[in-house]
C-alpha cells in the first residue's frame, strides 16, 4: 500500500528518457538529415561532387529561383491560414449558438463519425459531389440545367485553392469542436453561465467574455496543429488543390520525387522552408494573441451589454451544422453509389449498371493492407494511450501536490512537437536514419513513426477529462481495496474507460490516415489501405477509388463505434458511467 507506483523517481526518469528517445530523437535526426542536403550536402549523388556547394545556401536560392515557388507559397499560406481561421471561428460560433439549443446533442454525437472520415476519402467524395460532372450536377441535369454535357466550370482544383480550403474547413471544424468540448469540460462552464445570466449577461456575451477566454488556452495548440497540417498536407491537396502551380508541400514532394536527382537539394531546402513558415506563424499567432489581449481588455471587463441577435444567429448556426452534416453524408453517399456502379455517365442521376465486382476484387486484394493498417493502428494507438495514462497519472499527482512538478511543462510540449513540425520537413532525414539502422520496411518501425503522430492526438483528447477526475474516488477506493493499484484498475480506469476508449479511437483514426510516414519508413513494403487509396486516387477509375476510399473510412468507423458501444456493454451495471 505504501509503494507509490508512479511517483518513484526511477519510473519518472524512465518515462522522460523514453519520451525523448521515442519522440524527439527521430524528429531531431530527421530534421538534421533534411537540413544537410538543404545546405548542399547529399553524398549519395554522383553527379554532384562539387564541394563548393557544401554548407551553402545555393539550394535555398534555387528554391526561390524556381518559377512556381512564390505563387505556390501564396496558395499554401492563403489556404492554410484561411482554412484554420474559418474552421476555428466556425467551431466557436457553433458552440456559442448551439450550446443551449436542442441541437447540442446532435453536435456532440456527430463529431465522432465526422472525425472518422479520413481526409483523403472525404476529399475524393467531395470531388464526386461538387465537380461540374459530379453528383449534384447529375441530380439536376438535364431537367433543371438543360445540360447534357457537364459545364466547363473551374470548381475543384481551382486556381485560388478555394476548394482545397473548403475541404480543409469541413474536415477541421469537427476537430476544433471536439477540442472545444474537451476544453469546456475543464471548468464549471454551466455555473459560470448561470452566474453570468443572473448578472444580466446575455448568453452570447457571457460566452464571449467569460467562457471563450477560459477555453482558449486549450485551443491554442490544436489551432497550431491544424495550421501546420494545412500548410504541409499533400494527399488532399493533390485531390482538391490547384496544380499549375500546386501548393508548396506538393511542389516540395514533387522535387523529392523528380527524375533529376539534383532536385533533392531543392526538395530538402523547400522542406526546411516549410518548417520556417510554421515557426513564423507560431510566432505571429503569439503576437496577435498578445495584441488581442490588450485590445480587448476593456471590453472584456465592461460588463453586460447585449449586442448579438441571438435568435437569428442560433438559426443560422443550426443551418450551418445541418449543411456540414449534409455535405459529409453526401460525400460518403456519393462514394457508396460509385462503389457499386458499373457504368455511370453524365447526366444520369444514378448508375446505368450496378456491380459488386469492385468490392469483391478489393476484398482479396486488400487483405494484407487492411491487416497491416489494423495492426499498425491498434498497436500505435494502444501504446500512445498507455503512455498518455502514465503521463496523466503523474500530472494528476502533481496537481494534487503529491509529486514534484519536475519539468512537466516542457515535457508536454515535446509530445506536441510531431504535430507541429510539418511531416515533409523531416521525413526524408528519418528515412535515411531508418535505412542506416536497417529498420526501414519493417512493421515495427512504421508503428514507431505512427506513434509519433498519434500520441499528441491521444493526449489532446484524453488530458482534460483525465485531469478533471475527482481523486477522492480513488482515495476512497484505495482505503477500501487496500491497494493503490487495485483501486486504480477497478475504480479509476473503469470510470474513465469511455474517454480512454474515445482517445484510442481518435488515435487509431490518425494512424489510419498517415500517408507520407508510411510511405517513407515502410519503404513501400508495409502496405496500408491509405497507400493503396492514394495510388488509386490519382483519379483513374472512379469505382475503384470509391471502394478504396470507403475501406479507408470503414476501419476508423468500426473503432469509433466500438469505442462508444464497448464501454456501454462492459459497464451495463454501472449506469452512471
Amino acid at each position, binding site marked *: 500500500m505504501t509503494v507509490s507506483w508512479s511517483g518513484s523517481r526511477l519510473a519518472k526518469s524512465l518515462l522522460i528518457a523514453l519520451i525523448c528517445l521515442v519522440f524527439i530523437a527521430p524528429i531531431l535526426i530527421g530534421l538534421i538529415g533534411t537540413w*544537410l542536403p538543404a545546405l548542399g*550536402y*547529399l*553524398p*549519395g*549523388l*554522383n*553527379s554532384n561532387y562539387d564541394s563548393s556547394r557544401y554548407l551553402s545556401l545555393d539550394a535555398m536560392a534555387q528554391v526561390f529561383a*524556381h*518559377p512556381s515557388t512564390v*505563387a505556390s507559397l501564396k496558395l499554401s499560406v492563403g489556404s492554410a491560414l484561411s482554412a484554420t481561421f474559418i474552421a476555428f471561428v466556425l467551431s466557436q460560433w457553433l458552440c456559442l449558438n448551439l450550446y443551449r439549443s436542442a441541437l447540442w446533442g446532435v453536435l456532440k454525437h456527430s463529431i465522432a463519425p465526422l472525425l472518422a472520415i479520413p481526409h483523403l476519402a472525404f476529399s475524393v467524395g467531395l470531388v464526386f459531389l461538387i465537380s*461540374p*460532372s459530379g453528383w449534384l450536377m447529375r441530380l439536376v441535369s438535364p431537367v433543371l440545367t438543360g445540360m447534357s*454535357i*457537364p459545364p*466547363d466550370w*473551374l470548381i475543384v*482544383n*481551382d*486556381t485560388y485553392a478555394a476548394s482545397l480550403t473548403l475541404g480543409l474547413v469541413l474536415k477541421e471544424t469537427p476537430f476544433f469542436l471536439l477540442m472545444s468540448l474537451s476544453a469546456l469540460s475543464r471548468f464549471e462552464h454551466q455555473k459560470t453561465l448561470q452566474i453570468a445570466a443572473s448578472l444580466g449577461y446575455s448568453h452570447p456575451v457571457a460566452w464571449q467574455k467569460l467562457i471563450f477566454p477560459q477555453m482558449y488556452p486549450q485551443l491554442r495548440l490544436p489551432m497550431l496543429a491544424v495550421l501546420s497540417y494545412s500548410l504541409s498536407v499533400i494527399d488532399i491537396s*493533390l485531390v482538391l488543390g490547384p*496544380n*499549375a*502551380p500546386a501548393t508548396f508541400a506538393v511542389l516540395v514532394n*514533387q522535387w*523529392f*520525387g*523528380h*527524375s*533529376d*536527382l539534383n532536385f*533533392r537539394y531543392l526538395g530538402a531546402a523547400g522542406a526546411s522552408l516549410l518548417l520556417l513558415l510554421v515557426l513564423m506563424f507560431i510566432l505571429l499567432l503569439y503576437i496577435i494573441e498578445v495584441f488581442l489581449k490588450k485590445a480587448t481588455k476593456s471590453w472584456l471587463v465592461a460588463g453586460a451589454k447585449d449586442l448579438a441577435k441571438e435568435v437569428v444567429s442560433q438559426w443560422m448556426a443550426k443551418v450551418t451544422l445541418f449543411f456540414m452534416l449534409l455535405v459529409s453524408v453526401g460525400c460518403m453517399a456519393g462514394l457508396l453509389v460509385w462503389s457499386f456502379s*458499373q*457504368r455511370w*455517365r*453524365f447526366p444520369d442521376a444514378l448508375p446505368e449498371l450496378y456491380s459488386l465486382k469492385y468490392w469483391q*476484387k478489393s476484398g482479396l*486484394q486488400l487483405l494484407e493492407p487492411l491487416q497491416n493498417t489494423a495492426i499498425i493502428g491498434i498497436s500505435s494507438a494502444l501504446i500512445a494511450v498507455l503512455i498518455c495514462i502514465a503521463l496523466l497519472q503523474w500530472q494528476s499527482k502533481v496537481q494534487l501536490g503529491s509529486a514534484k512538478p519536475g519539468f512537466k511543462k516542457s515535457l508536454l510540449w515535446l509530445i506536441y512537437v510531431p504535430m507541429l513540425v510539418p511531416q515533409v520537413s523531416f521525413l*526524408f532525414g528519418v*528515412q*535515411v536514419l531508418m*535505412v*542506416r539502422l*536497417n529498420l*526501414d*520496411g519493417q512493421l515495427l518501425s512504421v508503428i514507431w513513426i505512427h506513434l509519433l503522430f498519434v500520441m499528441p492526438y491521444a493526449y489532446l483528447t484524453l488530458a482534460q477529462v483525465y485531469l478533471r477526475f475527482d481523486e477522492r474516488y480513488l482515495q476512497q477506493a484505495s482505503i477500501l481495496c487496500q491497494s493503490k493499484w487495485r483501486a486504480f484498475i477497478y475504480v479509476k480506469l473503469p470510470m474513465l474507460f469511455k474517454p480512454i476508449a474515445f482517445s484510442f479511437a481518435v488515435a487509431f483514426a490518425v494512424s489510419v490516415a498517415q500517408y507520407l510516414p508510411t*510511405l517513407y519508413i515502410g*519503404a*513501400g*513494403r508495409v*502496405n496500408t489501405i491509405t*497507400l*493503396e487509396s*492514394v495510388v*488509386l486516387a*490519382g*483519379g*483513374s*477509375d472512379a469505382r*475503384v477509388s470509391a471502394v478504396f476510399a470507403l475501406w479507408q473510412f470503414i476501419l476508423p468507423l468500426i473503432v469509433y463505434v466500438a469505442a462508444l458501444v464497448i464501454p456501454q456493454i462492459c459497464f451495463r451495471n454501472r449506469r452512471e458511467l
Partner: protein
Amino acid sequence: MLKSTQKKSVDSAALYRYIAVALLTASSPSWALDSKETIAEQWQKTLAEAKGQTVYFNAWGGSQTINDYISWAAKSVKEQYQVTVKQVKITDTGDVVSRILAEKTANRTTGGSVDLVWVNGENFRAMKDNELLADAYTQRMPNYALVDTENKPSTVYDFTTPVDNLEAPWGMAQLVFMHDTEKLSVAPTDMASLLQTLQSNKGRFSYPALPNFHGTTFVKQALLELVDDPQLLTKPVVEADFARISAPLWVYLDKLHPLMWRGGKTFPKSAQQMKQLLNDSELFISLSFNPSDASNAIANDELPNSVKTYVHAKGTLGNTHFVAIPFNANAKAGAEVFANFLMSAKAQLHKANPTVWGDPTVLAMDKLSADERKAFAELPLGVATLTSEQLGKVLLEPHSSWVSALEKAWIARYAK
C-alpha cells in the same frame, strides 16, 4: 557528428565507385566469351538461387488493369520458379529512385528495399548517371534473345540513353488519342486541326500538367510537329538555341490553352484522370500511351463504346518501358527470373491481349515459334483499337535533355 558522417559517406562513395569499376572491367570479358551453353548454365544457377526469394517489384500502381496483370505474372513465377513477387504500388517512380538514393547515402550496398523497378526515360537516365543500377544483366537472360532489338530501336536506346543491358524491355508504348465519337465525330489529324476542333468545342481537351509523364509527352509531340527541323531534337539541347527552336511550340500552346478544359488554368492530374473525364463528357479527347487503352476501358465499362482511338497523320511518339534491378537489390536472382518471365512469349502474349492489358509486345515475331507467332496473330483487336498500319509511323523520342529543358520552360510560362 557532421564531420564524421561526411567523411564516412565520401569514403564509401569512393569505395563504391571503385567496386563498380572493378566489376565492370572484371566481368566484361566473360560476357564476350558467353556461348549459348554458358548462358544456359549460368541461367540454371540463377534459377536455383532465385528459388524461395521474395522480389519486391516497385511499379506504378494507378491502374487496376495493370495491377491485375502483375498479379497474374507473380502467380505464374510462383508456380513455375518458386519465386514470390510482391508489387509495391507507387505513385511516382521518382520516389523509388529517391529511396534507392537514400539507401546509397546510408551506405547500404546490399539488402536494398527495391529488387526490381518499372522505369524508363528520365528516371532510367538518373539511375544510370548516379550508378543506382545493378551491373549489366539482360544479356544473361534467355528470353532477351527474343526481343526485337533490330526493328525496335527504343529497346536499346531509352529516350536516346543507351540501355547497355541495364534494364529489360517490358512493353512498347505509342502515344494515341481517344475521342468520343458521339460528341465529336471527326478526329483531329494534327496539332493545327486540334486547335481548330477546340474552337468549336471549347474546353473539351487538356493534358496533364508537367512534369507529369503524359503531359511532357504531349508537349514533345507538339514540338516535333511544329518545329521546322525535327532532326535538331535528336541532339542534346543547346541552351543558346532552345528559345529559337522551341518558339513555335509556345506560340501554339499560348493559343491552345485558352481553348482547353478550365481555360488551361488547371490541368488534369494524370492521363488516367483524363479517361474518367472522357467518360464524364468533361473531355471529348483524351490521350494514352497504350494503343489498346480505349478498348480495354470499354470492355470494363470505364468508357462508352462510342470512344475510338486515333493518331496524328505524321506519326506519334513511341518508346519502350523497362524493368531494372537496383545496385543493392536484395533478391537479384529472383528479380532476373521475374524480368525474364515478363519477356517470355507467354507473358508478352497475355499482356498484349486487349481484354487483359493490351500493351504491345517487345518481341520479334520471327524469333518466336510458329505456334507463338500464330497466337500473337490471332490476338483480338479491341473495338476501339487501330491496326498496326493505322497506328502509322512511330516518332522517336527527342534527346532526353529536351525533357528537363521543356519542363523548365513550361513551368516558367504556365505554372507560376
